[in-house]
């Protein structure tokens, strides 16, 4: 155990902190909103020039070009979090597409897409799920037939976050109809304004508060050049799994920050003249959650150490998503109970607390429990890959 970072990193931390302090008041909200686009691009470019975003992406692809250094990444995240500022942009382009292109893309794809994506000039959505293919993603049916130098795509995607506000999509499509389930899929990128694409918004249970919008995307004879395939044709399943890994890593929510917010609420919220913190019952629930948050905080440090040493965390890594998502949901549940009968207030109504944060947080945590591999699927993975329990036998075919 040695929890010191050392002088070089302490200096780096001080630089990041100074940068965040200087700019935090004037930053725009980093969102998909086209009206904010220009300001967002400026803000992201400023961060890239300072080296706090796209830090390890090579210069020729529009990044800052530093050597990868995990501790620097952690320090940047911690310092931005601390000030309540989003580092870079939480969006599927930077968090999922860019790592995939870096690993599997052609030189041309990298030069064309990585820079503009990191600068917020090009926004992306993820076209994986279909009505009949969610947890069982590999059963997806959206078909891409080759026609000369193009693919022609027909089919449907669903629950596509932000598709209505995106310029581009990275998608999984079936290019080899005769191949086995997992080996007939390709990973392809396409502009959302291609003729034949129709986006239909799907209202979410949040009533569309917050950032996420849900959509269905229909494809009718959508023509996409073959050069838009990322990696090998037919190898899309393996490539998607590297992206999903990036998604699950990026779901590592900041439980400690949420806990502080919850504690503040409990000090301030009163019923019958007594603060929630003075109630032994609520306090006991808070302490239970604090122990869990502390567990996950130190578990995160343990995972970080494994990465630094290039050791596999094994089963200890497989349990992170399911535990963090549930913890976040449970923290918002306590906050809502603390507010009692006012806990259901929503959408900036009179008497709403904390600008409605908790109901939104609760609904979004629930979404994260489902999205990117449901809790049940995670438990299957833990049991089968982690504990070596046998897979479900295939049902007998009749």
């Amino acid at each position, binding site marked *: 155990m040695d929890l010191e970072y050392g002088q070089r990193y302490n200096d780096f931390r001080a630089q990041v902190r100074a940068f965040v302090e200087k700019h935090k008041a004037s930053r725009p909200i980093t969102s998909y909103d086209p009206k904010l686009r220009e300001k967002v691009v400026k803000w992201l470019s400023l961060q890239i020039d300072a080296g706090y975003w796209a830090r390890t992406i090579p210069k020729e692809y529009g990044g800052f070009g530093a050597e990868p250094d995990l501790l620097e990444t952690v320090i940047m995240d911690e310092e931005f979090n601390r000030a309540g500022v989003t580092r870079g942009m939480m969006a599927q382009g930077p968090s999922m597409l860019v790592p995939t292109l870096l690993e599997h893309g052609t030189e041309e794809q990298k030069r064309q897409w990585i820079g503009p994506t990191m600068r917020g000039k090009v926004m992306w959505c993820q076209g994986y799920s279909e009505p009949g293919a969610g947890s069982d993603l590999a059963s997806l049916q959206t078909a891409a037939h080759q026609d000369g130098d193009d693919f022609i795509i027909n089919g449907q995607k669903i629950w596509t976050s932000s598709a209505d506000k995106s310029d581009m999509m990275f998608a999984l499509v079936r290019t080899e109809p005769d191949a086995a389930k997992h080996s007939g899929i390709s990973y392809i990128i396409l502009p959302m304004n291609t003729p034949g694409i129709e986006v239909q918004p799907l209202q979410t249970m949040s009533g569309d508060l917050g950032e996420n919008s849900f959509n269905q995307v229909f494809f009718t004879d959508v023509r996409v050049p073959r050069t838009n395939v990322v990696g090998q044709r037919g190898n899309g399943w393996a490539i998607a799994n590297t992206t999903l890994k990036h998604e699950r890593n990026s779901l590592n929510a900041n439980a400690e920050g949420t806990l502080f917010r919850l504690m503040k609420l409990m000090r301030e919220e009163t019923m019958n003249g007594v603060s929630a913190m003075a109630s032994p019952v609520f306090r006991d629930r808070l302490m*239970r959650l604090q122990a869990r948050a502390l567990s996950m905080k130190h578990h995160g440090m*343990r995972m970080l150490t494994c990465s630094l040493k290039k050791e596999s965390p094994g089963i200890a890594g497989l349990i992170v998503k399911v535990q963090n998502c549930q913890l976040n949901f449970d923290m918002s549940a306590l906050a809502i109970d603390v507010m009692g009968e006012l806990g259901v207030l929503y959408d900036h109504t009179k008497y709403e607390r904390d600008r409605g944060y908790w109901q939104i947080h609760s609904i979004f945590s629930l979404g994260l429990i489902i999205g990117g591999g449901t809790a049940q699927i995670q438990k299957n993975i833990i049991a089968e890959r*982690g504990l070596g329990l046998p897979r479900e036998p295939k049902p007998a075919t009749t």
Partner: protein
Amino acid sequence: MDFGLSEDQRLLEQSVRSFLNQQVPIDRVRELREHECVIDRKIWRALAELGVTGILIAEEHGGSGLNLLDAALVSEAIGAASTPTPFLSSAIMTAVGLAEVGREQTHAWLKGIATGEIMFGTAITEAFSKREGAGVSSANGTLSGKSMMASDVCTADFILVVCDGDKLAVVRRDAPGISVTKLVTIDKTRCTTEVQFDNVTCEAVFDGCSQAIDRMLQAGRIALAADTLGCCETMVEMAVEYAKERKQFNRVIGSFQAVKHMCAEMIAEIEPARSLMWYAAHSFDAAPDEAPLMACHSLAHIAEIGRDIASIATQVHGGTGWTDEQNVHFWFKRIANARHLLGGPELLRNRAAEVQGLAEAS
């Protein structure tokens, strides 16, 4: 930045685990439970030879002067094997309590623990919970009163006693005026008694020990959390192993998703709890300001997940899990006993709130 165990720590853990597997397998524990007292001095001596009874004791007193994290790994191994031993009372609580007292007089006792010649029992329950009129007071170097749910006193050489709220006393086990009554608990792997003091002459009474008692309880709680964690690991291992062998409906039960998810949920609780325990133990030496909070949280949290795991791992075994012949119940009951041994989860969480200034100190 390195959050994890060192090579030395891994070796230490391994050596204790393989020693216990060989020397004190569960069949041996089965035999020991038939004895008058489950504590066996031979095991204690052997642990001393391994060098772990003096793990926390300073080198000047003949120990190895290691940190609580090292000691907690030993505790975890002891829990994993369900070994009856006064490790918690002697090597953790007495060692920390007496070291904090810091008087020359304590040298011989600390040295005796390190060499394995001396075993200490503890009568300290009243430091956090008084029932049935219990409580010990001192006057002119003598003790009177009673202490309940005392640990490892039967076969001990000395007893460490909390008296008058903020004093620590050392008495000989065989001093005139002491009477020890065995209290039968569900847990056959620990020794539990009531100790009555009737004008017992002490070897020493140390005043002004609030701080020493606090540190002793912190160390004890963290080590006990590690013990329960070790119990949980073994229970999950046994459940997973059983799930891979037992067949029903022509399949191994581990291929049923309900069983898989029981196992996945148990391990998903264990791994972050391990990270919590590591940090709690580390903080005891490296960040003592955080230790009061971390001690409460680690024990309360692990007691909670322990109760669930004890139940679920037994359920995976079905009817055989409910028999005496199948061994899982040893760990089930050890976990149950640990839950309140140094304060239950509700008490600890209330204390956790107090040390953060979120609740008024009681």
